[in-house]
């Protein structure tokens, strides 16, 4: 389901347009349109919405984000301990979902920055772009190319290969 639309983080700072001193004698249609909109559309909609919120405020209740305990990882499981495998697998899936959401959030931040800055985006959004590049590279290193059949075991094997490559690179660099 779509996330809640409480995007307080992406609020654009208030515009600083100066007050215009127009010298035209014709009346400005903008205030007239604004009042028309607020009487015809805004006031009824706000009234209905506030009525609905008053009905809903009579019985408030809450929902929470579930916090899962950390269980031993797949690398700490003994061989043949299928229960440990199952719990480590479940934890790995949860962590992968969390990482996906992290990448998504960083991507949205970059998008919001571009939308905000407009023509200045290439200079002012450099930090967000750099962060996104690092995060996607990290995600690709850890979870990329595992495929649809990827599970905690294949991810652990991928990590093992990464560490072997790193060690080889270190050994060849120190020679």
């Amino acid at each position, binding site marked *: 389901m779509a996330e*809640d639309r409480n995007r307080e983080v992406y609020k654009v700072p208030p515009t600083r347009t100066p007050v215009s001193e127009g010298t035209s004698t014709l009346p400005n249609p903008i205030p007239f349109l604004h009042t028309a909109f607020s009487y015809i559309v805004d006031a009824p909609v706000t009234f209905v919405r506030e009525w*609905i919120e008053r*009905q*809903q405020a009579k*019985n*408030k*209740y*809450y*929902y*929470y*984000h*579930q*916090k899962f305990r950390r269980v031993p990882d797949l690398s700490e499981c003994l061989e*043949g301990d*299928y*229960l440990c495998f*199952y*719990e480590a697998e*479940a934890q790995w899936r949860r962590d992968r979902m969390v990482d996906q959401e992290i990448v998504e959030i960083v991507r949205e931040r970059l998008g919001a920055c571009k939308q905000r800055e407009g023509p200045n985006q290439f200079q002012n959004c450099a930090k967000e772009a750099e962060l996104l590049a690092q995060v996607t590279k990290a995600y690709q290193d850890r979870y990329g190319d595992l495929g649809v059949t990827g599970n905690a075991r294949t991810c652990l094997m991928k990590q093992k290969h990464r560490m072997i490559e790193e060690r080889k690179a270190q050994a060849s660099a120190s020679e």
Partner: protein
Amino acid sequence: MAAMSLVLRAAAAWGARRAASGVAGGAHLPWLGEAARLPGTVAPVRHSSSHGKRMFIIKATRFYDTRFLNLLRFYVFLTGIPVAIFITYVNIFIGEAELAEIPEGYIPEHWEYYKHPISRWIARYLLDPPEKNYEKEMAVLDIEAKKTQLRLMELEARRLMRQRGDGPWYHYETPDKNLVDNSMKSTPDN
């Protein structure tokens, strides 16, 4: 009653015969400007003043299509409208839950992790808690793991008992030694 229906049937037959004779009479004079018509489509026309000649337009039947669409609409709305009203009522008067931090020392129930009231209701009364599901799956895994271990141990025991021959398995029935006829071997010079 029966006489009435007989009279009506006779009247319908007389009318059909008159119409047929009208068709036949009209077919004798085709060069008098009558347009070529399909047999049986001759009908009296009346020129109305406002929109030209009234036409009896022959079209393929739309009876089955409209009947199907009417029935479809009826049966979809029969349960669709009550469900829509119910969901609207729930959304307006009960409303969704608000996100909050878990208070200190409080363990929320498994349905309190959902936002929409109908999802909460389903999770509370219809579905099993996810902890129970988890434990059930782990129990299945545990039983299967124990079964594989037992099977491997059985295979090992069979292998060793066959090899060493000192276990209760792999005993074969042999014939009684008193039945053996030793008369062939009893005399050395046979």
